């Protein structure tokens, strides 16, 4: 019990080791390869997304630049195509505004501002004629440069807008042509840049003020400073920024308007890399699925391996026990031979002494004895029993001699008789009668006589065991088989207690025994099975509880020249193997 528990633990440990090694060997490379592939995929995908966004931002920057340039060109053209004094007339300015609006509806109004900041002429929807701009932040810059584009501001009208100014000189004084650009028209340019759920663009000035209206509220503190980071003066700036709340944003920025403005595209990484995340989830799912398959297959595989190892071990153990068993039989044989030899000599002496008495009884003086007849009868009995002893010892010796498994032509009937003679004593002791029905002139079989003897001894011993309590009859039949051509069938049947139906499928299994512990090894029938199988024969059993058991052994024979010559005529008409 303890041993079987140890071996169970041993196989369990083996199973565990195989399982671990296979799983490790298959999953570790899979994970390694997956991680490597994923890492490369991840970086190249990110690179691609960033490049795509950069390109998009660059395109929009160019569009915005173009928009501003167009507006500036239109204003410049307007200035150069008109006489300055004419521009000071509001009607002419209205006309010019209409022309500009014809070119682009983004122009809201036009105004002429003098050096002191007074708007001397105005054309547009607001009442801004004669308005004083001397406090306006843009006036100084507008007077200092030929052209100027302002940041977005509310101004006097209270609407977000920005202005484009062109400076001209007339009447020895500096004048400014001021055109207002509709914020919405400008804003649309940036608004169009929307990707995914969270990707949008906006424009910032150097002070960090929004020049366009972002679609969502943005905390200015969250936005990195792009001017500080653009040391390399590249066209596109890529920044990944993680917020304290854990949100990570991608910022793609490009500078506009002589670096005064920056066009910023912002998107959460989760949104930007959503395809990557999906791919990541899919990859993880595939890995998990593959892992489950690997583990399941490994479980099955390792269990199979261990079962096979277990079977091989059992077979090996069985073989070892078979060797031990044969060794035991051989030593029993040797012992039997030794005993037989030792008994043979005293028997010989007894027989000789009895013979001597017989000789003496022939003498005249003893012949007259009244007990002469009784002496003679007694001597005859000693002779008879001596011969019996001699027969027994000779059979024992012959059994012992046949322990070598060399294959030889064997007369089945002779072997049966020999084994029956050896078992006869035990049978008589248990009131069991052994009857034989042997068909004469059976062909010889090529088999080791010691092995065949072992088979028959086992079958007869099993039958004897089945009947040792109540006695009965063992019938041994040998004949040519009708069912199996080219085979001799030996039937050993008893009328003992029979074998329960549930046990029958297992009786040839090694180590299976119904005998009490220590009484049987459970090897007898499996050894029989092994021997019979080896020579190409077969064995079967049928049994009815309380009625009896019948073993049938089919052994292939070969036709010798001698057998062919003496083959009996009625052989083919023999009865079928089935006996009743």
């Amino acid at each position, binding site marked *: 019990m303890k041993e079987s528990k140890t071996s169970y633990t041993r196989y369990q440990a083996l199973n565990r080791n195989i399982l671990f090694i296979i799983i490790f060997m298959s999953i570790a490379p899979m994970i390694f390869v997956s991680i490597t592939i994923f890492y490369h995929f991840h970086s190249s995908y990110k690179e691609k997304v960033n490049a795509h966004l950069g390109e998009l931002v660059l395109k929009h920057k160019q569009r915005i630049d173009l928009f501003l340039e167009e507006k500036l060109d239109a204003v410049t053209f307007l200035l150069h195509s008109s006489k300055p004094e004419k521009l000071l007339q509001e009607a002419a300015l209205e006309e010019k505004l209409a022309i500009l609006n014809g070119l682009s509806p983004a122009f809201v109004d036009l105004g002429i501002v003098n050096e002191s900041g007074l708007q001397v002429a105005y054309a547009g929807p607001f009442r801004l004629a004669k308005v004083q701009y001397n406090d306006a932040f843009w006036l100084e810059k507008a007077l200092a440069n030929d052209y100027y584009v302002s940041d977005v501001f509310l101004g006097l009208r209270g609407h977000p807008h920005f202005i484009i100014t062109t400076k001209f000189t007339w009447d020895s004084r500096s004048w400014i042509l001021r055109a207002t650009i509709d914020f919405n028209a400008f804003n649309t340019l940036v608004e169009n840049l929307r990707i995914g759920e969270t990707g949008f663009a906006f424009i910032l000035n150097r002070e960090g003020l929004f020049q366009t209206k972002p679609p969502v509220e943005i905390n200015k503190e969250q936005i990195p400073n792009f001017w500080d980071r653009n040391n390399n003066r590249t066209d596109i700036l890529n920044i990944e920024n993680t917020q304290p709340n854990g949100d990570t944003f991608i910022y793609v920025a490009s500078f506009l308007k002589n670096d005064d403005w920056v066009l910023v595209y912002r998107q959460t990484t989760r949104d930007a890399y959503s395809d990557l995340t999906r791919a990541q989830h899919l990859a993880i799912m595939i890995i998990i699925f593959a892992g489950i398959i690997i583990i399941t297959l490994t479980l099955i595989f390792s269990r199979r391996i261990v079962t096979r190892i277990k079977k091989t071990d059992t077979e090996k153990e069985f073989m070892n026990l078979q060797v031990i068993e044969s060794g035991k039989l051989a030593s029993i044989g040797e012992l039997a031979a030794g005993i037989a030899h030792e008994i043979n*000599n005293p028997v010989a002496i007894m027989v*000789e002494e009895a013979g001597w008495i017989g000789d003496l009884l022939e003498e005249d003086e003893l012949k007259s004895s009244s007990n002469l007849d009784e002496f003679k009868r007694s001597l005859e009995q000693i002779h008879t029993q001596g011969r019996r002893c001699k027969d027994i010892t000779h059979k024992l010796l012959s059994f012992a001699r046949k322990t070598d498994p060399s294959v030889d032509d064997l007369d089945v009937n002779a072997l049966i008789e020999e084994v029956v003679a050896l078992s006869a004593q035990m049978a008589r002791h248990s009131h069991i009668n052994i009857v034989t029905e042997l068909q004469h002139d059976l062909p010889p079989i090529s088999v080791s006589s010691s092995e065949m003897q072992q088979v028959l001894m086992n079958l007869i011993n099993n039958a004897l065991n089945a009947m040792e309590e109540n006695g009965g009859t063992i019938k041994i039949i040998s004949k040519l088989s009708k069912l199996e051509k080219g085979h001799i069938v030996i039937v050993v049947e008893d009328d003992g207690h029979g074998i329960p139906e549930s046990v029958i499928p297992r009786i040839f299994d090694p180590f299976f025994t119904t005998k009490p512990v220590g009484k049987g090894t459970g090897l007898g029938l499996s050894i029989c099975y092994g021997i019979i199988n080896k020579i190409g024969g077969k064995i079967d059993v049928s049994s009815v509880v309380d009625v009896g058991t019948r073993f049938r052994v089919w052994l292939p024979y070969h036709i010798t020249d001698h057998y062919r010559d003496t083959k009996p005529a009625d052989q083919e008409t023999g009865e079928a193997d089935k006996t009743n």
Partner: protein
Amino acid sequence: MNSAIVLIVDDEIPFIQALSKRLKKREFSITEAFSGSDALRILNERQDIEVVLLDVKMPGIDGIETLQTIKQKYPLVEVIMLTGHGTIETAIEGMKLGAFDYLLKPCEIEILVSKVNEASARKRMHEKKIIEARINRITKKRV
């Protein structure tokens, strides 16, 4: 025909004793030896031994060795092997080495007597032939 002079060799003293009494009663002249070396010594001392009944299994020099020596030194002496069944191959080997026959112990006295008689007859015949051959040779030389 005079009864044969027989040497019985066996380590079982009671067996020899019983057998020799029975053979003596049947007019044989019996000498006993209890081992192989004993037998060889007796054969060396006595030239008249005709038949040796030799047990196969003996301590010391066993039956086969004794047989080989006998056949080498005294080729005309006939040897009958006595054996148990277990050593029957040895007895057959003995036949090959020149033993007259072998008998299984215990054996019927009649069979033993007849074998001994046959063996001594053959020995005498061989001796006779040898003597005749010698006489012929001497006669031829004189002629």
